[in-house]
């Protein structure tokens, strides 16, 4: 059935958002390299704009796009084979034949796990892993990826090109790693998805606290991994962590953009469907002993999600979970969060002592949340002058405007001595 241009444009945009990674991942092996696969997939989307208008929108847009992109890749191979017989083949003949058969088939295997394992290969810098994942799995344009990390488009284009050149030149394989390597490689993949989320959840710089686009991409990636690895506890843990943290998204700033602490947030506005889904996943992830890093972080978020009010939070449970987290993921940042929970469970003096015990940690030098936590406990034990100095330290280290405004308002509210 013919469709209007608007309907088709909307369907293609939707397919771009939902299916880009699937279509690209399924095309890479046929195309032989990522660059060429991207060209073929672009081409398939362009064809969709024309053909769907005349012939109607296919029932499975992803399968349609994959078939068209793979055919294009095969055409390019045939052209190469004729033009440049002397060159070594990127893809062995038997694979081309194999795929030529599969192109007509209905069932297209999901190759996105291969693609994300390639994008997050430890031989690539983390910033390159992030950029490749957003570009290739999520289909963000180079300009969008550049905007997400607040670098110029030429800088991001160069970063992506260098990363793809390394994949090709060093021969980073396009495959799911064997079982003995999978845990380490999957940890890198989960780390990248988590970093996309945290970058979006509290933007490191800029006027807005939350970069919603990045949060949604992280959620989509985590859901994709959950679909591909349904019984993996760390995947369940990460998805739970993202859901339970994101459930508070709409309550983290007030109407004027001022930062609201967990204590001040309107819990009735938390996203209950995300919380329900997150709680089920936490239970599943925590069944594995010992629970992993993400499962424990998610369990901490779950304690908050389950508490009807700030005062009713089970802080001792939070401290206990942080103790477990410190054991599986020793990090001064985790220890600082634990210290804050200690202050909630056992009073500001205990919290201050726990924070001060971390003051010499080199990894926390320049970490804005250390002086911020210290300032809060100093304020609550009535040491206004010390609190003032700590707030000033924290403000000097904070580049997010919303967070800085919050610290400045706390500073102003201190009694003058």
């Amino acid at each position, binding site marked *: 059935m013919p469709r209007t241009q608007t309907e088709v444009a909307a369907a293609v945009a939707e397919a771009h958002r939902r299916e880009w990674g699937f279509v690209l991942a399924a095309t890479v092996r046929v195309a032989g390299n990522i660059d060429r696969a991207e060209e073929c997939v672009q081409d398939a989307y362009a064809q969709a704009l024309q053909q769907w208008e005349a012939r109607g929108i296919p029932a499975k847009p992803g399968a349609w796009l994959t078939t068209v992109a793979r055919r294009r890749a095969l055409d390019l191979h045939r052209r190469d084979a004729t033009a440049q017989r002397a060159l070594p083949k990127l893809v062995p003949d038997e694979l081309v034949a194999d795929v030529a058969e599969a192109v007509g088939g209905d069932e297209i295997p999901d190759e996105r796990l291969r693609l994300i394992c390639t994008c997050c290969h430890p031989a690539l810098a983390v910033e390159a892993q992030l950029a490749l994942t957003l570009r290739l799995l999520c289909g963000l344009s180079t300009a969008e990826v550049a905007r997400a990390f607040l670098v110029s488009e030429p800088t991001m284009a160069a970063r992506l090109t260098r990363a793809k050149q390394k994949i090709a*030149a*060093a*021969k980073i*394989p396009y495959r799911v790693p064997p079982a003995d*390597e999978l845990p380490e490689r999957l940890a890198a993949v989960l780390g990248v998805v988590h970093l996309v989320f945290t970058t979006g959840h509290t933007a490191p710089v800029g006027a807005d606290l939350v970069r919603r686009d990045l949060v949604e991409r992280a959620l989509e990636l985590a859901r994709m991994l959950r679909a591909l690895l349904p019984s993996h506890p760390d995947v369940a843990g990460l998805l739970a962590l993202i859901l339970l943290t994101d459930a508070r998204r709409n309550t983290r700033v007030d109407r004027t953009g001022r930062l609201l602490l967990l204590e001040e947030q309107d819990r009735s506005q938390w996203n209950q469907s995300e919380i329900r889904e997150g709680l089920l996943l936490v239970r599943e992830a925590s069944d594995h002993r010992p629970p992993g890093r993400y499962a424990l972080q998610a369990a901490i978020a779950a304690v908050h999600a389950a508490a009807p009010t700030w005062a009713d939070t089970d802080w001792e449970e939070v401290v206990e979970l942080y103790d477990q987290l410190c054991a599986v993921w020793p990090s001064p940042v985790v220890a600082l969060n634990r210290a804050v929970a200690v202050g909630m469970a056992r009073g500001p003096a205990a919290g201050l002592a726990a924070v001060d015990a971390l003051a010499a940690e080199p990894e926390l030098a320049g970490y804005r949340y250390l002086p911020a936590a210290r300032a809060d406990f100093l304020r609550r034990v009535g040491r206004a002058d010390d609190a003032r100095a700590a707030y000033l330290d924290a403000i000097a280290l904070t580049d997010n405007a919303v967070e800085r405004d919050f610290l400045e308002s706390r500073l102003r509210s201190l009694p003058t001595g």
Partner: protein
Amino acid sequence: MSQYLILIYEDEAPFEGPGAAEVHAEVYAAHMKFGENNGPKLVGGNALQPTATATTIRDGVVTDGPFGETKEALGGYYLIEAADLDEAISIAKQVPAKYGAVELRPIMVFDS
């Protein structure tokens, strides 16, 4: 199959100090074992004399020594053959380099 060069960068001090003889013997044995375990993948390899024996030529001017004073110096290399980077990494991980690290570089192939 692709070729990769594994460059071994290590601190030279342990190889020259009072316990040098034991260090040499231990490192030699470790490399022999690496060779036995990875024989078919090895295309070539050599140990280098220490940087004190090096000569630098820049713009035709000959001077002694390496380029800079770095703690770790190139001490040897292997040329290996591997299907892809993951296989190369699994071989490179076995190269003895207890006083430093190894760097893995793909060999550039020129289209004829």
